[in-house]
């Protein structure tokens, strides 16, 4: 059957196309509505959300670190300043393969694998995205040039100028001012992340640590617009940082140097306090170290050398060194005896060279085995007679000894503003019961009376006890800070900028005249013909009240190697001397400790005198006018 011929029906085709075109147009219109609805959803309903996202994209807040406050000595000599220093920074997000970039830096600057490890550690410590992390400090001109030439190989690497702490006096103030160092991970957890957002360094010891909050200042901000790669395009808002407060310390550079010179190359500690105010005038712990090494990160080798040195340069002997105070506390014991009435000024004791408790065979020996015969208080102090003080201590008993010596600062932190001060130890019955689970033995009272036994004190505590003797019991906590932006430590404490450490109550004697008597006896130590330190007194241009002492070195300290020769030398007694002057108008109280110096009067006393000379005498060797006489009371004009 033939297939019917299908003619082309143009009208029908046209209708077909027209119908489909209409359907298509409707579909297009509907789909267009879908698009509009979608845009409406994004641009109107979700506008806030997307707007915020877009803003957060572009706006970043960058911290501007505040300049750290400067530190001056009492005469305005700068002890810690901020020096522009060029450091090499790496921004991980911009570096691409930052490990490779670090390799390139090491190669270009011809550094070793040790630095490579250090760099990597520092980069990993980076805290925020797009933050340039300093990896190498104190770039030399040559190094900057090397980086500039190879910049194309070093994406994300920049030479940045920043202020870095510098200690122009180097090791002279390492133990007082301390140093700053890079913030470590432990500190990072503790610190306010906002306040320290731009800061890389923090005080690690000394004044730098203690006054960190004052020195640091307030961080500033910059709101910047950045592009998708983090590059800053413009600054939208700028808040200036508030620089840290400048600190003026009471330390005196020339006195500090004089004291170091007096100590020579011996190991030891010197601390000088103005008894009228508690201001620390000099603070030396020898040997010392260069604090600048720590600022930009000390190398492992250098640190190991400092740490492992047998001379322990990192050890702050003034604050951390605890020694039996020896005879230096005898004036305080004598004062306790007078004030509590167990002895009279005129009480005499016969010294056969030893002291025996009733019914006990043990002989507590005087340092002078031959004995001094009949001794009164003046002779006992000036000759440092042990027998007298065994007897006195026995009469006082440990309870009263503890009370008086504690009041003079033994066994407690005395300073106002010093970091990591050791407490020392003032033994008592209670202490022994708790710590040793033993009763107190009378014999222990005797040796406490001559500053031996359990008792341990820092040179700072000895100086403070001496200052208290000098100013008749008026308590001023020793402090390093004189002014911070014009504010005294007391004002800082009042305004809450400094943690309050109120001074203990002043020492009130039943008879204030006893202060003068003890001072007089201490002057006999130096100026009396039979005084232990009479050689020092012979050349003195002013009256010195002093007391010598020796501290027994009991055991080998930890960390020292067994070396016979060294050991013997380091087994010798530490030489101690405390003094204040001028005796009639005390303006300086000094404590000197010479490690293994053996003789308090022979070795330590001359050091103390040189320090006092440096403070009290003018260049012609005469007592400075302001120290000459007691300050005149304003006379009442009738």
């Amino acid at each position, binding site marked *: 059957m033939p297939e019917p011929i*299908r003619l*082309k*029906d*143009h009208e*029908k*085709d*046209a209708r*077909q*196309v*027209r*119908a*489909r*075109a209409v359907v*298509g*147009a409707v579909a*297009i*219109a509907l*789909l*267009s509505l*879908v*698009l*509009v609805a*979608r*845009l*409406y959803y*994004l*641009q*109107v309903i*979700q*506008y806030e*959300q*997307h*707007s915020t*996202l*877009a*803003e957060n*994209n*572009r706006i970043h807040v960058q911290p501007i670190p505040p300049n750290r406050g400067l530190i001056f000595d009492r005469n305005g000599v700068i002890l810690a300043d901020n020096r522009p220093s060029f450091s090499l920074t790496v921004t991980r997000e911009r570096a691409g393969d930052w490990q490779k970039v670090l390799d390139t830096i090491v190669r270009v600057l011809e550094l070793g694998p040790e630095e490579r490890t250090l760099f990597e550690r520092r980069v990993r410590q980076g805290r925020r995205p797009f933050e340039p992390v300093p990896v190498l400090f104190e770039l030399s001109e040559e190094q900057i040039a090397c980086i500039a030439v190879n910049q194309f190989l070093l994406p994300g690497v920049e030479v940045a100028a920043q202020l870095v702490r510098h200690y122009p006096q180097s090791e002279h103030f390492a133990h007082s001012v301390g140093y700053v160092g890079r913030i470590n991970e432990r500190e990072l957890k503790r610190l306010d992340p906002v306040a320290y957002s731009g800061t890389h360094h923090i005080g690690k010891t000394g004044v730098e640590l203690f006054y960190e909050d004052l020195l640091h200042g307030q961080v500033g901000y910059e709101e910047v*617009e*950045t*592009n*998708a*790669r983090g590059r800053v*395009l413009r600054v939208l808002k700028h808040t200036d940082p508030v620089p840290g407060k400048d600190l003026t310390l009471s330390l005196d550079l020339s006195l500090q140097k004089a004291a170091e010179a007096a100590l020579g190359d011996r190991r030891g500690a010197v601390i000088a306090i103005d008894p009228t105010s508690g201001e620390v005038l000099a603070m030396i712990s020898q040997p010392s170290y260069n604090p600048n090494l720590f600022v930009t990160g000390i190398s492992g080798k250098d640190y190991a050398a400092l740490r492992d040195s047998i001379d322990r340069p990192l050890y702050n002997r003034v604050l951390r060194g605890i020694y039996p105070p020896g005879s230096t506390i005898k004036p305080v014991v004598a004062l306790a005896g007078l004030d509590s009435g167990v002895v009279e000024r005129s009480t005499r004791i016969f010294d056969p060279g030893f002291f025996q408790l009733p019914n006990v065979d043990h002989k507590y020996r005087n340092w002078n085995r031959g004995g001094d015969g009949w001794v009164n208080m003046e002779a006992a102090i000036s000759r440092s007679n042990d027998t007298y003080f065994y007897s006195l201590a026995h009469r006082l008993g440990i309870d009263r000894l503890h009370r008086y010596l504690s009041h003079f600062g033994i066994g407690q932190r005395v300073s106002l503003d010093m970091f990591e001060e050791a407490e020392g130890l003032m033994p008592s019955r209670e202490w022994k019961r708790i710590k040793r689970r033993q009763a107190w033995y009378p014999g222990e009272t005797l040796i406490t009376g001559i500053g031996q036994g359990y008792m341990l004190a820092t040179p700072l505590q000895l100086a403070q006890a001496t200052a208290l003797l000098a100013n008749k019991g008026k308590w001023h906590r020793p402090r390093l800070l004189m002014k911070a932006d014009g504010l005294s430590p007391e004002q800082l404490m009042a305004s809450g900028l400094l943690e309050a450490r109120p001074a203990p109550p002043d020492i009130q004697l039943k008879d204030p005249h006893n202060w003068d008597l003890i001072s007089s006896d201490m002057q006999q130590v130096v100026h009396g013909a039979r005084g232990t330190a009479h050689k020092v007194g012979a050349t003195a241009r002013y009256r010195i009240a002093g007391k010598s002492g020796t501290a027994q070195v009991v055991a080998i300290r930890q960390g020292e190697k067994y070396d016979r020769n060294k050991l013997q030398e380091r087994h010798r007694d530490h030489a101690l001397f405390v003094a204040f002057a001028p005796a009639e108008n005390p303006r300086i109280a000094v404590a000197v400790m010479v490690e293994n110096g053996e003789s308090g009067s022979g070795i330590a006393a001359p050091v103390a005198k040189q320090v006092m000379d440096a403070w009290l005498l003018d260049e012609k060797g005469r007592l400075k006018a302001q120290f000459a006489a007691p300050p005149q009371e304003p006379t009442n004009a009738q």
Partner: protein
Amino acid sequence: MHNNFNNFDRTLSDEDVLRRRATLLQRLHIDGPLLLLLLLLAAGSLFVLYSASGRNLELVIKQASSFGFGMLAMLLIAQVEARFIARWVPLAYVLGVILLGVVEVMGHNAMGATRWINIPGVIRFQPSEFLKIIMPATIAWYLARNNLPPGLKHTAVSLALVGVPFVLILRQPDLGTAMLILASGAFVLFVAGLPWLWIGSAVAAVVPVAVGMWYFVLHDYQKQRIHTFLDPESDPLGTGWNIIQSKAAIGSGGVFGKGWLLGTQSHLDFLPESHTDFIIAVLAEEFGLVGVCLLLLVYLLLIARGMVITVQAQTLFGKLWAGGLTMTFFVYVFVNIGMVSGLLPVVGVPLPFISYGGTSLVTLLSGFGVLMSIHTHRKWIAQV
């Protein structure tokens, strides 16, 4: 071809001939509404591009010259009678497929995909663009030879004709273009009156095929891409970045936009591909919902004119070709805006006339040249 003499919709009365005396535009074979809308788009496009490219005047000038070149191509094509083109369509199709084959074998590789034929110093040519015009023409030519609606055999042949270039382009790989080619062929079938039952069956078949592909065909990275499309926040720094940023750009534009050159997302480089595929986000950010709606309006007017041309075309071939081109044009718009605004997965489809790129511009304008040709040559008998 002589029977084409009979291909009138209707005979013109004398009155008609008098009323429709050829104007200057008609003599030049230019369609006024289309030209006006295209010039409007060209001007607007250059403004947006200047901002989107980060004030790159060089780029804008290049795009402007592409516009000029494209307009020239459009006007030249408009001079050629569609019936004349129809004769050469089969040959053009064969040539296009052969060129695709050549690309497959020895094409020039750019940006991870082989799409170009590059004879250095002579020509750099993308056969797939050529096929965007020729593909609907081929199907139109094939279907116009027979009565509508197309039967099973004609449909199958049509699908085969579409399938060859589709597969070749898919292998380049260029999913976006392949889909546009597929769409242009499918739309001709649709306009030709493909039975609804078949269309319904095809759509219904998509679901099981898609599920099967998910489990057996798709590579992990392709699954990842689909996953990112469904939940861009799941990978905000990787593949989701683009879509999150483009949504933020569009959304932060609000109703009236941030102002020309003031879009932060694009100017600070948060927006990827800001002057090519994602340019609508720049426009949306700087001109807001109002700006995008105005653009959509221009597009819809172009499409409406294309529909009018489709309906008024005098030959079936012209109708089908014009309908296919017009609907495909909408697919460009819909897919691009849909993908940038997060409605559709990201496939490489530029926004017509706005995205930077000379090739696609010339292709699109050529398509409109075809529409003009179909429309302006239809009164040939009256002009004799």
